[in-house]
C-alpha cells in the first residue's frame, strides 16, 4: 500500500467524513501528524442541554424521536417488508418507508461524536477467536462467515492506545477470557452498584467467570476532565459531568487543537468526487443552506457507519465503477450485522436499585465461545439503570396488571426490585443482509436513501435462544423469584453496533477493503468505522472500531 500524493493542489491533505468513533480517531491521528484535515459531520455539535433528558426520545428509548439526531423528517430509509417481523413505518408499495426512530431503520446518532455522544461506552476488546470465526467453527450453509485477515495481536497495540489515550476504566485482572494484559487500564473500575454485587454472587454460585465491565468513562479525573458522578441517566444521554469519553470530547478536540483540522457540521456528503480516470479526488457536499460544493483532498476517509458508508460508495458510481465505488465484486453493503440482544428480566425479593449509575458493572464471558453445538456466543452483563418508562415498556412481567390501582401498586412496589441481564450475540453474517440505495426515495438533500433488505443468518437466532436461557439461569442464581422474557425472532440487525457492510479481506472478489481498510480499487480511499468488520464479536464494537481506525490512520501516515 502506498498513498500516491497527487501533484495537483488539493484543498486538504485529507477529508474525513463522519465524526463518530472511527472518524474522530482518523481526524486526530492525521491532523497530529501534520496533515491538513477537513472533518465533516452531517449533524450538529450538541451541548448537554440540547441532548437533554427526554425519556421518550433518546438513543435507548426512541418512541417519538432521537435526542442526538438524525432529525425525524428528511432522513428516510426503505426496508424490505420481510426484514422485520411486524409492519414498521409506512407502506411504500411493497416496501416500508422508515423514519430514523422507527424499528428497522438501523439508526446511529447524527451529531459531533455520533453514537459516542450518547452511548454507554462499554469498552471491549474482541477475543482472539472472534477474528477467526470460520476457522473455529466452519462456515454454516448460507452464511458468509469468514476469518478477518488480521488477528487480535495485530490490533493489540491500538487497543492499548484507545484504553490509555481515549480513556477506559476497568480491572484488567478480571478479563480472564483474554490473553493476559501487558498494561492495566489507566483507571480503576467504576464503583460496584448493590445489584451488581448480587449478580456477581450469582455468577460465583454458577461457577461462571465474572469480570468488571470496562467502560469509556472516567472513573476518576483523567485527561483534564472530571470523574463519573454516578448519575442515573447515562446510556442514551449525554454526560452531565463530561466524564463519558466519546469522540466529541477526546479525539475531535485533539484534532482541532493540532491547528490542522477544520470541523464542518451540518454538511452532507452527496458523493465522492472522482477524476476522469476514476480516481477519488474529494467529495461533493451539500450544506444546511442547500449549497453544493466539491472539496478536494489527497486522501479520503469514510467514517459514516456501516449503513451510510455503504450508501455513499454506492451513490458514487463512475464510468469506471458503474455500480458504485469499491463495488466491483458486488460486495459493498452486504453482510450488514449488528448485535442481537437476548436477555431476561427477573423480580427479586429485595430492593436491587441503589441509584448508583451508570449500572452495568458485572458481566460474564463464559459463553462467548466453546459452547456445544453453537457458533460463537456472546457475553452477558447486568444493565445500566433502567428508566421508569423503559421498565414499563420493556421489562414489565407479561402477566402483571397494566392499568388500575394494582398496576400502580405493582410499579411502586417493584420498580426497584426488577432487574435484567442481557448481552450482544456474535452474529453469523448473511450476504443477503444488505445495504443498497433506493433511487426512488430521496432524503432532504435529494440524495437517494439507503435501502435495507435481508435478515441475519438463522444461526444468530439459535445462538440468541441459547443465550436467553443462560440469562434466565443467571437471574435465578442471583436470587430472582420470577424470571421472564422472550428470545428474539429473526430480523435484519444493525443499529448502533452496525458493522460488516464493507468487509475487510485479501481478495477483492469477496471483500471491499484490504487489511489496512483501504478500498481495494483505490489507493487513497479508506474506511474507518464498523463497516470493515468481517464479524462483529460478541461485544459492543466501539473499542474495536476505534482501535482499527487508529491502526488505519497510523498506516496512512506511515506510508504517506
Amino acid at each position: 500500500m502506498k498513498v500516491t500524493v497527487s501533484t495537483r493542489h488539493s484543498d486538504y491533505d485529507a477529508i474525513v467524513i463522519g465524526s463518530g468513533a472511527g472518524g474522530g480517531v482518523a481526524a486526530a491521528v492525521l491532523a497530529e501528524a501534520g496533515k491538513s484535515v477537513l472533518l465533516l459531520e452531517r449533524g450538529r455539535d450538541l451541548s448537554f442541554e440540547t441532548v437533554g433528558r427526554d425519556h421518550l426520545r433518546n438513543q435507548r428509548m426512541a418512541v417519538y424521536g432521537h435526542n442526538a439526531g438524525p432529525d425525524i423528517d428528511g432522513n428516510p430509509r426503505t426496508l424490505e417488508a420481510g426484514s422485520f417481523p411486524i409492519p414498521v413505518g409506512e407502506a411504500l408499495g411493497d416496501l416500508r418507508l422508515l423514519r430514523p426512530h422507527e424499528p428497522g431503520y438501523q439508526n446511529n446518532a447524527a451529531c459531533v461524536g455520533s453514537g459516542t455522544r450518547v452511548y454507554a461506552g462499554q469498552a471491549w476488546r474482541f477475543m482472539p477467536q472472534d477474528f477467526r470465526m470460520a476457522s473455529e467453527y466452519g462456515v454454516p450453509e448460507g452464511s458468509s462467515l469468514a476469518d478477518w485477515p488480521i488477528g487480535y495481536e495485530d490490533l493489540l497495540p491500538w487497543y492499548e492506545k484507545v484504553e490509555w489515550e481515549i480513556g477506559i476504566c476497568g480491572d484488567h485482572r478480571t478479563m480472564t477470557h483474554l490473553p493476559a494484559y501487558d498494561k492495566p487500564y489507566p483507571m480503576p473500575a467504576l464503583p460496584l452498584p448493590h445489584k451488581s454485587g448480587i449478580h456477581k454472587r450469582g455468577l460465583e454460585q454458577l461457577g461462571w467467570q465474572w469480570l468488571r465491565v470496562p467502560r469509556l468513562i472516567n472513573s476518576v479525573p483523567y485527561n483534564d476532565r472530571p470523574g463519573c458522578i454516578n448519575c442515573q441517566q447515562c446510556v442514551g444521554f449525554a454526560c452531565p459531568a463530561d466524564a463519558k469519553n466519546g469522540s466529541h470530547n477526546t479525539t475531535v478536540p485533539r484534532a482541532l487543537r493540532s491547528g490542522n483540522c477544520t470541523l464542518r457540521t451540518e454538511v452532507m456528503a452527496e458523493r465522492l468526487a472522482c477524476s476522469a480516470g476514476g480516481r477519488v479526488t474529494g467529495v461533493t457536499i451539500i450544506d444546511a443552506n442547500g449549497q453544493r460544493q466539491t472539496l478536494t483532498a489527497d486522501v479520503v476517509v469514510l467514517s459514516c457507519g456501516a449503513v451510510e458508508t455503504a450508501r455513499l460508495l454506492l451513490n458514487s458510481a463512475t464510468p469506471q465503477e458503474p455500480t458504485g465505488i469499491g463495488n466491483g465484486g458486488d460486495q459493498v453493503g452486504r453482510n450488514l450485522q449488528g448485535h442481537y440482544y437476548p436477555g431476561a428480566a427477573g423480580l427479586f425479593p429485595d430492593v436491587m436499585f441503589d441509584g448508583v449509575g451508570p449500572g452495568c458493572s458485572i458481566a460474564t464471558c463464559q459463553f462467548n465461545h466453546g459452547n456445544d453445538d453453537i457458533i460463537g456466543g456472546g457475553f452477558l452483563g447486568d444493565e445500566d439503570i433502567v428508566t421508569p418508562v423503559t421498565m414499563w415498556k420493556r421489562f414489565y412481567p407479561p402477566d402483571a396488571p397494566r392499568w388500575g390501582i394494582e398496576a400502580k401498586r405493582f410499579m411502586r412496589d417493584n420498580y426497584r426490585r426488577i432487574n435484567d441481564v442481557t448481552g450482544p450475540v456474535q452474529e453469523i453474517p448473511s450476504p443477503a443482509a444488505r445495504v443498497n440505495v433506493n433511487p426512488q426515495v430521496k432524503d432532504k438533500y435529494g440524495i437517494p436513501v439507503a435501502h435495507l433488505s435481508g435478515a441475519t443468518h438463522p444461526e444468530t437466532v439459535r445462538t440468541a435462544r441459547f443465550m436467553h436461557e443462560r440469562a434466565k439461569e443467571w437471574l435465578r442464581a442471583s436470587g430472582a423469584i420470577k424470571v421472564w422474557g422472550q428470545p428474539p425472532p429473526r430480523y435484519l440487525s444493525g443499529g448502533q453496533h452496525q458493522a460488516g457492510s464493507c468487509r475487510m479481506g485479501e481478495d477483492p472478489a469477496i471483500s471491499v477493503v484490504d487489511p489496512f481498510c483501504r478500498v481495494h480499487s483505490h489507493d487513497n480511499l479508506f474506511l474507518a468505522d464498523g463497516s470493515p468488520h468481517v464479524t462483529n464479536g460478541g461485544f459492543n464494537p466501539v473499542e474495536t472500531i476505534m482501535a482499527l481506525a487508529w491502526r488505519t490512520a497510523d498506516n496512512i501516515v506511515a506510508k504517506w
Partner: protein
Amino acid sequence: MKCLRALLDTIIPEDDFPGAWEAGVGDYLGRQLASDLAKLLPAYQAWLAGLDDEARVLHGADFAGISPRQRTALLMRIEQGAVEAAWQIEPAPFFRDIVEHCAEGFYSDPGNGGNRAGIAWRMIGFEVSG
C-alpha cells in the same frame, strides 16, 4: 374532557399519590395529540365517544357520571372486547394504546408534561442526581 379525565384516572387512579390527571397525564396527552400523535386524534375522539355510549347503554350515564367501581368494570369488559354500544373503532386494541400513552405521560420525565414535579418517580423510588 370530563370523559378523558375519568378514563385516565381509572387507568392510573389516585391513592396516597396523585392519579394520572393530577400528575399531568392530560397535559402530556394534549401535547402529543398536537404533535407526534396528531394522527390519532380522530381515533381518540371516536374511542371516547364509544366509551360514553357504552356507559350510557349499561348504566344510563356518561363515563364520567358512573362510579369508579363501575368505570373499572366497564374497562375490564372493553379490554375483553365485550361491548354493547355501536363503536366506531375497535375498542380493545385502542384501549391498550391509551394505557400505553397514559403510562408514558405518568412515568417519563416531567419535561414531557406529565409526572409533574417527578411525583411518579418519587412514588416508585427512581431517585435522580446529576
